């Protein structure tokens, strides 16, 4: 009976403690709900059509209207441009402006007459193995769609098609007749990394953000709950010095952990590092800075360690969902997708994957975005901390 009394006392105490921290309760209940609601409403699960440029052979008299090619009805592929400048198309592919470049062979009919399949060169620029597989699959689908269109037109034109190839039809192997065109998929990315390499780098960015956010959030909350903030209010230390001191300390710690993690990724898991180590370091520095700024903001709005941990975990949860770590940002509603770019790790993942696996960032503006996020978060946290250090 006394044991029951003690257990009930503990139950009561725990419940009262939780309920008396309204911030913690709100973040505990509303936080995950909000993230799941955003995910539910913002994620449509559809893959965006692959933006494609069709490159025609020189002096081709084929149509240059993209809609004509779209009318082939290839699923998941959207032709946005038709050109004869293959170099320019490949430049756009390398910059990430388009997903595929389809190069039409110079004389497919002549190739067919020679009893050979006309080969479409389908070029992509993917380091994401999942996305590369998808692009390859879509290239095969495109080829099948083209072949189907050839049959449809042949049937429509009746014997004209047979007359055109004349008596040589007998020389054409059945597999060529069955599939007059084939696709040769070429990946312009420097390497085609394994799953572990691609996601390992993303996980590094995620871990660095989570570690920075959590450690700094807890550090400031502990200063406050332990009473050190009272000392800071009285001692000749300014909010600026406190912010810089915290950022530098946890920046050094984060940098140390990043260096060890990169060593393990490259040494043990064989993840290639194609980019400049200096640029990788700069990116990690920016990611740490922005994450520490986020941690500072969380620490200042948290009323307890419990709430700081909860908010840090909510940031992690949101990052898992929206940063492109697992699900591609393009698969979200545009508003949610745009909001994803407010997370430091969204840029951190993209930049580090590019630096490791491509050798250079595909979207250099993301470095600027990280700088802006870092500056904004540190400014906000500095203002909040300065207010907190003023007389109450």
């Amino acid at each position, binding site marked *: 009976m006394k044991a029951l009394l003690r257990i009930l006392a503990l139950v009561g105490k725990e419940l009262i403690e939780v309920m008396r921290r309204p911030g913690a309760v709100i973040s505990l209940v509303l936080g995950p709900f909000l993230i799941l609601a955003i995910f539910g409403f913002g994620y449509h699960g559809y893959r965006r059509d692959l933006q494609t440029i069709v490159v025609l052979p020189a002096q081709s008299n084929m149509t240059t209207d993209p809609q004509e090619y779209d009318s082939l009805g290839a699923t998941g592929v959207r032709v946005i441009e038709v050109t004869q400048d293959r170099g320019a198309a490949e430049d756009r592919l390398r910059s990430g402006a388009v997903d595929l470049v389809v190069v039409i062979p110079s004389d497919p009919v002549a190739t067919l007459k020679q009893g050979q399949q006309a080969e479409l060169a389908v070029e992509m620029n993917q380091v994401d193995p999942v996305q590369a597989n998808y692009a390859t699959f879509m290239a095969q689908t495109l080829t099948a769609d083209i072949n189907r269109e050839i049959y449809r037109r042949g049937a429509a034109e009746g014997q004209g098609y047979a007359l055109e190839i004349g008596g040589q039809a007998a020389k054409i192997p059945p597999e060529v007749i069955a599939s007059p065109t084939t696709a040769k998929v070429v990946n312009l990315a420097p390497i085609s990394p394994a799953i572990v390499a691609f996601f390992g780098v993303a996980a590094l960015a995620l871990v660095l953000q989570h570690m920075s956010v959590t450690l700094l959030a807890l550090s400031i909350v502990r200063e406050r709950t332990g009473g050190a903030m009272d000392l800071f209010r009285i001692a000749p*230390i*300014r909010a600026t010095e406190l912010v810089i001191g915290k950022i530098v300390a946890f920046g050094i710690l984060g940098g140390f952990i990043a260096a060890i993690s990169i060593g393990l990724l490259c040494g043990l898991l064989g993840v290639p590092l194609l980019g400049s180590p200096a640029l990788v370091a700069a990116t990690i520095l920016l990611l740490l800075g922005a994450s520490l700024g986020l941690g500072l903001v969380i620490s200042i709005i948290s009323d307890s360690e419990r709430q700081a941990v909860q908010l840090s975990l909510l940031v992690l949860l949101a990052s898992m969902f929206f940063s492109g770590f697992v699900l591609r940002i393009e698969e979200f509603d545009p508003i949610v997708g745009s909001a994803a770019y407010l997370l430091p790790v969204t840029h951190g993942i993209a930049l580090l994957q590019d630096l490791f696996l491509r050798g250079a960032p595909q979207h250099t503006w993301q470095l600027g975005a990280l700088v802006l996020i870092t500056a904004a978060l540190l400014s906000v946290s500095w203002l909040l901390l300065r207010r907190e250090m003023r*007389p109450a």
Partner: protein
Amino acid sequence: MEWLQLRFAEGQADVVASDAPAQTPPPDSVDDAPARAPGDAAVPAGNAGDAGAPTADAVVRTVGLTRRFDDVVAVGGIDLVVRPGTVLGVVGPSGSGKTTTIRMLMGSLAPSAGEAWVLGERPQAFTAPTRERIGYMPQSFILYPELTVRENADFVASLYGLFLFRRRRRVRAVLELLGLWDMRDRRAAKLSGGERRRLELACALVHEPVLLVLDEPTAGVDPILRRTIWDEIHRLRDRGVTSIVTTQYVTEAEEVDQVAVIARGQLVALDSPGGLRRRALGGEVIEVATAATFDAAALADHPGIRNVRQTGLRSFQAVVDDAGSAAPVVVEAVAAGGGEVASVRELKPTFEEIFAALVEEPVEAPSDEVQQSPPQVIAA
């Protein structure tokens, strides 16, 4: 006890706080000034003449200092002047407003009304150089448990801008002074409660402040350590350091030059320990035992005797200005009245009794309560 309270109430007008917010300029700051003689160091602002006039040699000055938390007045209109080299004890029951007052003086809490000047500046707008001249020891342990004793002191010294060589020297000096040098490499988490308090005191002293503010430094520490802490505070006073020390231990009022008694957010008394005793009793009290029944009422009008209270058929108490010089007068007065004095003793109530008389609501106390303290015999 009712009598003590009555007498105190009469004298209270001297120190009771003003509710009017201050409109006065800050006093000049004085530091490194020589220590003053105890007893003339801290005065209520209201006693310093015009409450609005600047006080040239004040380390701390408050006028109508008030802090409200919503509808609750935590501190209501405290007027205070603390001169250099003073040890001011702020005494009051738990929740009386001591820490709130200290926090306002330190600038971590803004007053709702009234003003304070510390070292010549308003605490809400302390400049860095002024902050460097203040040593503060908060009520609760705030140092870092994972850092060693030396690292904690070193960290605080750095906060106060001490560079390497001076910092090393000062850290060693304060740790040695407080007996912590031998445990300098021990983590703060492993220290006992008393050692932690000593470490906090070391941190408050490490940058050689001219104003030391200690919020209940002796709370929860053993008597020996308490003695060490007070000795250090006295040593610092001798070097000209001004200290403001809050305490719940009323007996520690003996250790300070001036005692500010705070109750329910009000400054109910501010005086030297001796002055406080006189104030509480209405003067010094001598207790007279007579050989036979004696009616003392007639002595009330006798020159040199301020008041008389009959405590028994053969005993009475006389309030006088100075017990030493008044004792023969009382003896003579009794003799002139036909009585014979068996003994005369100075009645010296403990500070607990004085404190209770000052801060408590009127309570019914037995008349012999005052006599529980061992009286000091000044004549036989």
